[in-house]
């Protein structure tokens, strides 16, 4: 599904990713761990097409398509979703407006008509329930006045509503208390299926207790320096990253 080969990327002229390789197949859950400044967030932004995050070498294909040539919105319509570490607040644009515009953008991309308002609301209401978000909050501006935990739950709600095929969650678990972490994990697990894949970018092993990854990778110095199964995450929790960086 996702094939990253020798990816180099620069941010403000500084090289952050230095030859990253990663293959994600449908049905898999990958966890990417690593120390601060390793390039974890940069990877998410480069994949999502954020301005200022330029791939300088290498290739990324998503279902065989050259992802790097697509605009951010086309990547999203193709089925890519990035859950942000710091979701933005957009006063004056309600959560429902965003969700509906995003749902209809995908439908338009696939050549089908706009969704009926009642179908849309039922669809959202059901998913808001999973995320334990009061539907009334969705009439407010995007993330406006949401607590840190609510913002993260809202990211997962967007994921559930949009049903991406590939989800990249950038430290969605950071700053969450244990209850919120469980809700987020429930949301992520609800999306697991043989034709979808998830990449969890995280600092801690904690989230992985609730969302069992198939593969764990360590990103350090702009490259994947080690890959393994779930046991690698536990090893990292015990030993830290220093032993890998030194290697």
């Amino acid at each position: 599904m996702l094939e990253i080969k020798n990816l180099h990327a620069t941010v403000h002229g500084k090289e952050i990713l230095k030859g990253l390789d990663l293959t994600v197949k449908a049905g898999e859950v990958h966890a990417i761990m690593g120390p601060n400044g390793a390039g974890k967030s940069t990877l998410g932004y480069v994949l999502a097409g954020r301005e200022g995050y330029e791939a300088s070498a290498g290739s990324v294909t998503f279902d065989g398509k050259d992802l790097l040539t697509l605009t951010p919105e086309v990547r999203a319509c193709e089925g890519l979703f990035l859950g942000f570490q710091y979701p933005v607040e957009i006063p004056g644009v309600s959560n429902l407006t965003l969700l509906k515009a995003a749902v209809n953008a995908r439908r338009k991309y696939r050549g089908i008509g706009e969704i009926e308002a009642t179908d849309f609301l039922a669809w959202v209401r059901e998913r808001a329930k999973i995320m334990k978000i009061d539907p009334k909050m969705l009439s407010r501006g995007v993330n406006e006045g949401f607590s840190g935990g609510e913002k993260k739950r809202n990211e997962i709600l967007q994921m559930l509503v949009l049903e991406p095929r590939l989800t990249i969650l950038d430290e969605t678990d950071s700053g969450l208390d244990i209850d919120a972490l469980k809700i987020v994990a429930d949301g992520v697990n609800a999306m697991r299926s043989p034709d979808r894949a998830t990449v969890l970018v995280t600092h801690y092993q904690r989230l992985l207790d609730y969302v069992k990854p198939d593969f764990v990778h360590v990103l350090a110095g702009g490259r994947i320096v080690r890959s393994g199964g779930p046991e690698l995450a536990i090893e990292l929790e015990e030993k830290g990253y220093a032993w890998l960086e030194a290697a």
Partner: protein
Amino acid sequence: MNPALASYAEAFERFTAVVPAPQRAARRERLNEFLKLGFPHRKVEDWRYTDLSTLATGSFINASDATDSLSGAFLPRTDRLVYINGHLDKTQSTADELSDWIAGDDVTGDAVAALNAAFALPGLNLKLGRNATIARTLHIVIAGHPQNSPAMNHQRHRIELGEAAEATIVFDFIGLGDGAHLATHTLDIRLAAGARLQLYRVQNERAGSTLLTRIDARLARDSHFEAVCVDGGSGLARHDLNVELAEPGAEVIVDGLFMPVPGAHIDNHTRIVHAAPHGRSRELFKGIVDERTRAVFNGKIIVRPGAQKTDSEQHVANLLLSRRAEIDAKPELEIYADDVKCAHGATVGQLDETALAYLRSRGIDAATARALLLRAFASEVLDKVEPAALRARLRQQLNLPAGDSLDIAA
């Protein structure tokens, strides 16, 4: 007399015959005042960014009446006056009896006011007695239909509300085609004690037009005046809004939104004078400006000596859509009383790139994302427009997407 203004003197001679005889002498005096003053130019501080001097040689003739169906602009559940090129269109109006010649005004020393006073055709003349209320919103459609040669028309309007009287009035300026056209409008508003007036002034002029409006409102004790001003449209528009809180307890709320289309020039000058204690004023103007458009905002708040306990707020927010866009925004505060609460703020910013990126990351194309953010910016003012049909029309005119009105709680 400034020889360049000869065409105005000639136009007056042709015009004066239609004016009611008792008004002729006074109007000639105002013409002479105009001819002496000439059009304001950049050296006049109040007109620093809006130069009218080219109008002098415009050789405008008085516009003749024209027919055009304005039914597309009609608002449901309103009574209506329809003016085309300054002339009342009786077939499309439902409140003819409210249209009349208006004599006398006390604005002197202002060239545009003098020009208007000399040439003014009948306009809205609404007088409500004590406790009176107009049953339906009054919709004043003022359409300009360009003619083969540059034409002008001038109108004068008056709204007088007696004690505790109430009215809602929409002044709707509509351009029906491109072409040189000059229109001036003055509106006198007098609110007696406890009266309430909700006024809308909206504008969608076309290229080549010059629209000059001036509103002078005097608020008596505990009266309430609310004005919402929305400018889209092309051409040159200059609006002066002068409000005097003349007696204690008066309140004025002004909301403005301007979003000129390329080539347009929109100048709003507001002046709110707190002349008595316990007055309250709230002013919010928002502007969205792109390159090749020009926008000017000048908002003056004056608190006179003795106007203690005044509570005044003024906020101006501007969004520049391009590096080459330009806005001249100038808030001015003059306070001569010591026990007052006055707040003001002015901001100039750009579209929030982070928000734009966030929306695009969810699959929303750049143009739609931008429109959603512009709508969010404009909503604070547009949501104050209560007649839904008018609000929808303004949204469309400003190229802002319609709201979703999704009710998930239901």
